[in-house]
């Protein structure tokens, strides 16, 4: 009788341990072993903004370094944003100098309150799992995609969820904001691929 009871207890303990391990596995992000993004990465951004009938399409490239990211939109108009741990800074009086790596110049002023956004984007692109673990809960959705749900301020005040997809490298980032705005960012370290679906997206007529 005693042996039977011990066996049942051992079985229960094992189940508990397995369950705990499963929980731990779920609560800690284990992103796939994607190839890291560095240097110049082309992007296409589709911004679905509430109130607009069509998404806003833009394209350009990212220049990724250790602690900062230059977001250079080339179409529909040239615009540069510097993203770092300090925040998101709109570069003013800037332009691309003649250098091959497209380094931007000009002054910048961080948007107040955007620090967490800057840290978030850097963490996602550079796969800083420690940061992501601090603010998100990971769920696997499909073969190559992971859904991250924020559980801590201030991230949870901006976004309801973030979806990351990719095969060998991170290919898409889908950000869903509380106000219903959605941003789809497609990344490509190859040549620029600009999708021009006729009449589907907003284009700016430059003067």
């Amino acid at each position, binding site marked *: 009788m005693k042996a039977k009871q011990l066996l049942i207890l051992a079985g229960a303990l094992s189940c508990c341990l397995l369950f705990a391990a499963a929980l731990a596995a779920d609560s800690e992000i284990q992103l796939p072993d994607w190839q890291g993004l560095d240097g110049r990465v082309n992007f296409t*951004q589709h*911004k679905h*903004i*509430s*109130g*607009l*009938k*069509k998404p*806003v399409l*833009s394209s350009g490239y990212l220049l990724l370094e250790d602690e900062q990211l230059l*977001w250079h*939109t080339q179409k*529909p*108009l040239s*615009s540069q*944003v510097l*993203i770092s741990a*300090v*925040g*998101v800074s*709109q570069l003013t009086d800037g332009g691309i100098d003649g250098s091959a790596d497209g380094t931007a110049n000009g002054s910048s002023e961080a*948007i*107040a*309150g*955007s*620090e967490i*956004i800057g840290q978030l*984007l850097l963490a996602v692109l550079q796969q800083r799992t420690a940061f992501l673990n601090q603010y998100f809960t990971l769920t696997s959705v499909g073969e190559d995609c992971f859904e991250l749900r924020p559980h801590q*301020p*201030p991230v949870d*005040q*901006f*976004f309801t969820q973030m979806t990351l997809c990719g095969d060998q490298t991170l290919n898409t980032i889908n*950000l869903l*904001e*509380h*106000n*219903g*705005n959605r*941003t789809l*960012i497609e990344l490509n370290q190859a040549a620029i691929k600009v999708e021009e679906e006729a009449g589907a997206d*907003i*284009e*700016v*007529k430059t003067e």
Partner: protein
Amino acid sequence: MIRHARIICLLGVWILVLLLLGLKLPQVVWNSSITAALPSAQEPWQQQLLKQNRSSRQFSLLLSGPDTVDLQGVAQQLQQHLQEGVTWHQPLELMQMLQQQYQAYQGQLASDEHWDLLSRGEYEALIQSAWQRILSPAPMLDQALVLDPLLLTQQYLEQQSGGYRQLRPALMGLEGRSGDRAVLLLSAELAYDPFERQQAQILDDTLTRQIDELRRQWPDLQVNRSGVLFHAVAAAQTARSEMTLFGGLSALIILLMLVLVFRSLKPLLLSGVVMLISVTTGLAALLLFFPQPHILALVFATTLIGIAVDYSFHGMVSANQSAERFRSMLPSLTLGLLSTLLGYLLLIWLPFSLLQQVAVFIAGGLVAAYLSVWVLYPYLIKAGQLPVSRWACAVSHHLALRIDRTRRHQAIFLLLVAVVIAVGSYLANSVFTDSVRAFNQTPALLAEQELQVRQLGAQPWNSRFLVVLADDIEAVLQQEEMLKPQLRQWQQQGVLSGWQALSDRVPSHERQAALQQMLGQAYQSPVVQQFLDELGLETPPPALSNLDPESLQLFTQQHLVPVGEQLASLIFLSGVEGDAHVMQDSVMQDRVMKEELDKWPQVHWFDPVGDADNSISEIREQLGIWILLALGLSVLLLSWRLGPARSAATLLYLLIAMAGSLAFSQWFQSQLTLFNLVAVLLVLALALDYAVFFASELPLPEVIQAVSLSALTSGVAFGLLSFSQTPAIAAFGLTVFSGVALAALFAPLISCISGRGKR
């Protein structure tokens, strides 16, 4: 019979004094801030602002450590344990609150830059700016493009900051990095005045205990403190320990002296009685006239001990000879009392609360000391009852002989030479500083911590403000908006580097309406219409209501202060560097800029520290005049009793003591302050006392004994004060010490000039 009646009256009055103390003392709130004892601002609205200004209740804790330290966890624990009477600021919540408010009023708020573009019809620039914002990956306000297609309010919100430099709003406070260390700045406000010693001490002790516990867990954790609270606690601790130390040491040394001279404890008891009656009476007088006395008044009260002991020595020495000798001593004691009272009571007319308190304390105590000596000593001391030690008698007789041998012309010559040296040194070298910051000294560790907090830009605002006075909030906001171009101009000229006004957070209704009108025009323009068409947006409808300052309570209460029937709005300034009067010099002394500020009669320059410095300067000048007046009146009073020759000699002698003490203090301290001058008043009082007795017909050995004892005890008491860590107290002590020494040294020359008959 009469003597018994006097004793009963004296004791009766003293019992009343004790009853008064018993009633008042438990309820009294002692002030320990030097700046609180300073003269108040001139204008009534300035006085109200100072009274209601809560900036002294703010304090900060800068947590720092390597990345291994969980600063958020540390912050959480600290905030949990320090809750009573403390409201912790949450910058992130503030920004979120701002966002929520602005969310509802999109299209009604715009930055100054966009306002200018809009007013000039430069719509292309606005559209370009809006496009850049749309294309940025950063999130936007809800319905931003529908309500405000040009994203003016979105960008207006993003320009709002808390005035922070290297730090950014985070969950528990402001976070950032300093070198390789992470930092987290916590800020809070006290519910009580930081000068309420008991509560402040409890908070400080609790904080220290918490930090010690947290350091056991995180040895690399560093906590820097900033705020008036910590300076007040340090100052109070210093004042308490110094009062105990100096008072105790003074008493001990006086005791030893009495035992050595009189070889008996009875003189100690007799002086103790006089000191007890005088100190309690002085304290009662202080509490009767000043409901919130300053603790520094008690520190200066050690001066009363010196003078009270002086009276008791004169009483003891003369009563010990005979009752008749005591009676013949009384006129000199009375003259000394009157001249001293005259000098101190003049202080009451100065608009300086601390000096008034000192004057009342000492005047009350002196009268009590005099009366207790007069009434009690003939009753308590019989002739020959106090044996004076042989060596004391020998020394005093020897000195008396030497003085007797000094010729009159020699004494006059010495006095003249000494007065030339003393007055000449003073006039040639004296440098007064009137900065209120010179009165107090922050402990080095605390000053360093304060600097580290400020370097991170957590408190970028100077202690000088512009104040807008108006009848209501709308008028205040309109005034501030009219002032903005001037502030920008001063910023470009480098007079200031930044500012924060209430109108930066919430524009006036007038401005909001004007923005709506300009936007209406903009939406009709072809280029903006094209922009709207590209986005597929309709022209937004005009706003139905305005953003009210009442919606942003947390921000309005930082700036708005009711003063009487008006409202005062504080505009915080930064980058007004260097001398406290730089901006004032730039604005006020430069006529063009002064005229520019004069265009706004409702806008005022407010510099509490600078005003205090100016007040100190005025008071010092007035005090100098009062001192000379007191000197003149005292000498006049003396001349009525002593005649012209002795009065003239007394005048020279007093100048030696007063000017000499200041010259010595200047040499030792490199600068003089108001408190050196206050000390000169006491030097005058003591020196007068010595002069009166040396000019009297009392036997010289007795006078020498009494004056020597008095000078030694005063020298000890005030010499100890010169070791105080508080510069104001140290200055006071040093001047009195040197003045008493000079007075005791030169006083015998008066008896040479007097041509005294009896020896």
